[in-house]
């Protein structure tokens, strides 16, 4: 770990002002990922701006739904009454992630900003286009069991590791940010990006921008939500595949549905085509299987992760069955 400056700020303005134009200054929230990255030498900021004293941790009702402060802890969100009642998918996804100790430290904004867990990204002696553009992708032709099957490029096949973000993208969240040029809102599905030729960029934030809050619109999914996480051990493991499913049912007919997948792409992967297909259809295993096939249309394996081409559609079916209580 390098030597660095550490400053504390108590309001967003000061935080944004503290970020210099180059990449040598970074915001520090829960630190559950950033500190690891610094210890492994993956990131070496010269200055850390501790934003945890900015009052951005409230969870409150709005006219259209719920606003969650960027510094609300993962545990606080998962256990919040309004979240559990109206957005159970978010609670389930949060509780499926990390460990209680980490969830007690990690924030909503920090969760969105976490980097991939690709081994090649973490080992500075290995090639990685995300860490060091132009060095190549170690995972292609290497250990890629955990890697992407959708939306990857020949520069990077890493996946975004978050569980929370799968729920947020499924639930049509909006990200509110503030920066040197003022405030703006980003639809959650446009917050993270695909690797393309610039895998070093995880998201669409501009330099100096700070995540302020996340808005969730009210929906009718609370009764039929399920987050399925398939992983190598029962707890404290990243997803091989995860599926967030939230439906509004009318009898056995699917009135509306949201579907998203984790462990498959460089960003939380929304299954829009499958959603379209499912709307108005009966909740049967056969329909679910068709939807899963649609979702997998452009999927591609890289060797060790070929099993995901089976596991992903199966998991979509399982999640939909559980969410709709279909035997």
């Amino acid at each position, binding site marked *: *770990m*390098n*030597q660095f400056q550490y400053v504390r700020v108590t309001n967003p303005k000061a935080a944004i002002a503290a970020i210099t134009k180059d990449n040598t200054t970074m915001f520090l929230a829960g630190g559950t990922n950033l500190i690891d990255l610094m210890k492994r*030498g993956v990131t070496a900021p010269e200055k850390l701006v501790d934003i945890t004293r900015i009052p951005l941790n409230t969870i409150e009702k709005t006219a259209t739904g719920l606003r969650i402060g960027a510094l609300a802890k993962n545990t606080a969100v998962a256990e919040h009454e309004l979240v559990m009642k109206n957005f159970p998918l978010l609670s389930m996804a949060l509780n499926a992630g990390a460990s209680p100790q980490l969830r007690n430290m990690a924030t909503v904004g920090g969760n969105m900003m976490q980097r991939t*867990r690709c*081994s*090649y990204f*973490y*080992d500075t*002696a*290995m090639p990685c286009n995300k860490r060091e553009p132009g060095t190549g992708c*170690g995972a292609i*032709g*290497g*250990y890629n*069991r955990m890697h992407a099957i959708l939306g990857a490029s020949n520069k990077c096949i890493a996946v975004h590791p978050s569980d929370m973000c799968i729920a947020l993208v499924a639930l049509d969240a909006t990200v509110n940010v503030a920066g040197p040029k003022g405030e703006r809102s980003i639809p959650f599905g446009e917050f993270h990006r695909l690797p393309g030729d610039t895998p070093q960029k995880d998201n669409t934030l501009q330099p100096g921008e700070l995540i302020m809050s996340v808005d969730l619109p009210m929906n009718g999914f609370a009764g039929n939500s399920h987050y*399925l996480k*398939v*992983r*190598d*051990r*029962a*707890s*404290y*493991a*990243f997803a*091989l*595949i995860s599926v967030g499913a939230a439906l509004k049912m009318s009898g056995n007919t699917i009135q509306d549905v949201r579907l998203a997948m984790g462990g498959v792409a460089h960003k939380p992967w929304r299954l829009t085509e499958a959603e379209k297909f499912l709307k108005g259809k009966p909740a049967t295993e056969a329909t679910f299987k068709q939807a899963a096939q649609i979702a997998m249309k452009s999927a591609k394996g890289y060797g*060790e992760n*070929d*099993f995901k081409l*089976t*596991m992903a559609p*199966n*998991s979509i*079916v*399982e999640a939909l*069955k559980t969410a709709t209580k279909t*035997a």
Partner: protein
Amino acid sequence: MTKDTKNPPIDRVDGRMKVTGGAKYFAEFEMPNTAYCVIVGSEIAKGTIASLDTKKAAGAPGVLGVFTHQNVPPIPGWDAPVQGNGNGPPPGPPSGGEKYRILHMNKILFYGQPIAMVVADTFERATYAASLVKATYNKQAHQTDLEKNLEKGVTPKGPRFADYSRGNADAYKSAPVTLEANYTIPIEVHHPMELHGVLAGWTGDDQVMVYAKTQGVKGTQKAVAEAFKIDQKNVHVHTEFMGGGFGMGLRTWPQEIAVVAIARKIGRPVKLMITRNQMFSLVGYRPKAVQTINMGADANGKLVGLSHDATAETATYEDFTEGTVSMTKFMYDCPNVSTKYKIVPLDRGVPIWMRGPGEATGAFALESAMDEMAHKLKLDPIEFRLRNYTETDPEHNRPYSDKNLKEAYQKGADAIGWKERKAEPGSNRDGDWLIGYGMSSGTFNASKGGAIARAVLNADGTLLLQCSVTDIGPGTGTAMTMIAHNVLGVPVEKIKVEYGDSALPNSPQQGGSTITSTVGSAIHQVCTSVKKALTDMATQAGTPLAGLKPGDLTVADGFVSVDADSSKKVAIGDLLKKANLTTLDKTEESKGSEKPDQQKYSMYSFSVHFVQVRVNPATGVVRVSKAVSVADSGRIISPKTAASQMIGGVAGGIGMALTEEAVIDHRFGRFVNNNLADYHVSVSADVPHTETIVIDKPDPYINPMGAKGMGEIALIGFAAAVANAVFNATGQRIRDLPITPDKLLRTA
């Protein structure tokens, strides 16, 4: 005399200390003016260091020294070859390849090999300075993939590893029912919670204090003494507690010796604690192994022939060997058996025994194959084992000293609910989940080594026991207490045990499930000697028991009394006073297998494991939903810590079966999942309620307590029970550990 009653479940004697922070682990010790050492590891697996830039590191704040092959402080004893396995520098490979001497050469023999050791006044400054060391290399093509180098396998020296056969080795080929199957296990890393390291400080020109993480303080003492050519008495090694060892502390690693050398050079104590990442490359691992079982049986389910070939990996610079094929030689009644064991030198750090060692590797193959054959024969797996049960050891043609495996099968089957098992794989379903039951057996050599123990009985009735043995966690101190209590009747709360220090009487290292038998015998002997002294004193003139035979007397609760008439007694305090003594202080040496009986019998501990698994066929997820382990390991000295050890075996076994695998990217020769987020040890949520059952019958021959070890058998065979249960649940046979969801989906 063997105690003929079961022991009560007493609490772990150091339990309170452990949970309140009173137990001190090596890194918690402090010596004045301590400096901190951080290791820089090689980034390649094979080649030479072309350049090494240490200037920036040397100039970083607080740095006291940067030690490389260009300026390593002298380690005089390493100039000559050191004999013996496990301590100090290795004697060198039989093939005459390169010896590994830490920081003594610019050759790189494995990824992670220390190329620099950076010492600074704080750990943080040493860590930072280490990041400034820059090396360039002349790379050479490396070989790190066992499966691509199987043809390089060599049979290790020594009778234990020679090709074995009895009867007609090819008999399996012409049997009515045959099975040929290949099994592989990956590299597993011990990963105890406590990281490895050492704290060493020179307290005189030729005197050094070493706080180590070792499973044997005497071994480390010897290694340091030999490395620096000083008297063993001048090397003081302390390891009272260990935050888990699992085998990794069974030798003194080269970096420990280097730290002692650096401490001498800079004139300050030096503390090293390696990183979790370095735990993958610097302190050994369970080697990957590829095994083939050939089995033939007749239509009645009687084994006709059995052959077991195993090939495992080792380093180019040192042979590592273990008993991978041992169990196959004696476990079942089969007239025609052959085994072969080979090792392949690779450009890797050297392995070390990991719990259950090679027997755990071998049992996965043998016990999976037994299940496969039982299925072919349409026999219940227990019935198949019973049809091939043997009361005599077919390898050595002699009886077992003690074997109650039939009873263990029965008790385990009852506890798991074996009758719920459906013989037809894939036919037991609970909603979306498939249910399966599996079982397996395990066995490990039981023995008794030599050890010395001291007992000091005080006038106030308290007893002090001393032995240098390290307690790596199984409850050695508790077992010592119980044995002393049984001989001398001193209440357990009045017994104090001191261990884990080289100044105490000699004990072998804690490993191979031998310590309860070995140190326990020494404790038994020294307490018996104290008892004899007491009864001799009690029967002398002027006491209430004068003239009685010492053999008719009992010692308990601070008194010597007559067996038949407990009103006739004399207080121990009075006896000592009368003899003008403040204490009774005895030291006794217990020799290894000295009784002729011990050559007449084969001595083993046995175990049986049963599991119920749930498998989701859509996602490939396997969860162990119930586990039962049965130990047949003689008299149980400490029932609570024994049960705890068995539960630990189940947790480790679930890791071995389902999650643990250290992955190397062979293009680079480097581990890619080198952290505890990606290397999956089982977590609490993976481990179901575990029922532990002990047969608890004394072995009449092994030692005075009738006790045998159980650390290894708690793990040996467990992974096969899981694999067998997965087959029963799904009809899918996974022969390649760990059984991760991708493998079930791949073969579906």
